[in-house]
């Protein structure tokens, strides 16, 4: 399985990532997921989220998830990009692409990766509220 993990403070240019997609005609499924910063939560408006990470452990834990995904499903390629730092409302904070022979395994693997990363990968976010210049939990 080809794998690629990027943790970056640079905005995610999805078109550029898609253009770099590894591909051959034996693959019948490409699943992409984009997590986007909402501009509101039930308790108020949000202008951005600030992401921080224990980066060395985050890379290790992502690696373990990639290993497990490869064990569970016949994935050809798994690429994941996660923003760190301040991500404005409307911007993509997480982008995942999975290429596989069939849609079932690609969809299942993508959903599983998102759920598991929210359980074990040490990345945190805090809201920067609309009308505030500083962070708020």
């Amino acid at each position, binding site marked *: 399985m080809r794998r690629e993990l990027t943790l970056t403070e640079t905005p995610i240019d999805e078109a550029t990532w898609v253009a770099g997609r590894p591909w051959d005609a034996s693959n019948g499924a490409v699943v992409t997921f984009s*997590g986007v910063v909402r501009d509101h939560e039930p308790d108020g408006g949000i202008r951005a989220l600030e*992401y*921080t*990470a*224990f980066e*060395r*452990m*985050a890379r*290790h*834990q992502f690696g373990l998830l990639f290993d497990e995904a490869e064990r569970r499903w016949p994935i050809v390629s798994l690429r994941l990009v*996660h923003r760190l730092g301040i991500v404005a409302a409307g911007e993509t*904070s*997480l982008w995942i692409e999975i290429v596989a022979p069939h849609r079932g395994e690609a969809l299942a693997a993508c959903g599983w990766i*998102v759920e598991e*990363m*929210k*359980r*074990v*990968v*040490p*990345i*945190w*976010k*805090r809201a920067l509220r609309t009308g505030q210049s500083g962070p708020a*939990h």
Partner: protein
Amino acid sequence: MTVKVHLWSYFRELAGCAEVEVPMPPGSTLGQLLDELYLRHPSLAAMRNSTLVAVDVEYQGPAYLLQEQDEVSLFPPVQGG
């Protein structure tokens, strides 16, 4: 031995620092380290039930036997995505 404990996310604000060094007798467990840490930093003790604990880059439970040079990390539930 002295165990270095790294704090992440808002645990740093709760404790007022990013890392703490805790002297522990040889043969101590991770659970015993946490008991000692919470005595020194009661603000962290309030978060005990939801705290995640790692040694180096692996999650570990309270029965883990601490080794010389181990570095421990404490952090709140993760929130990536």
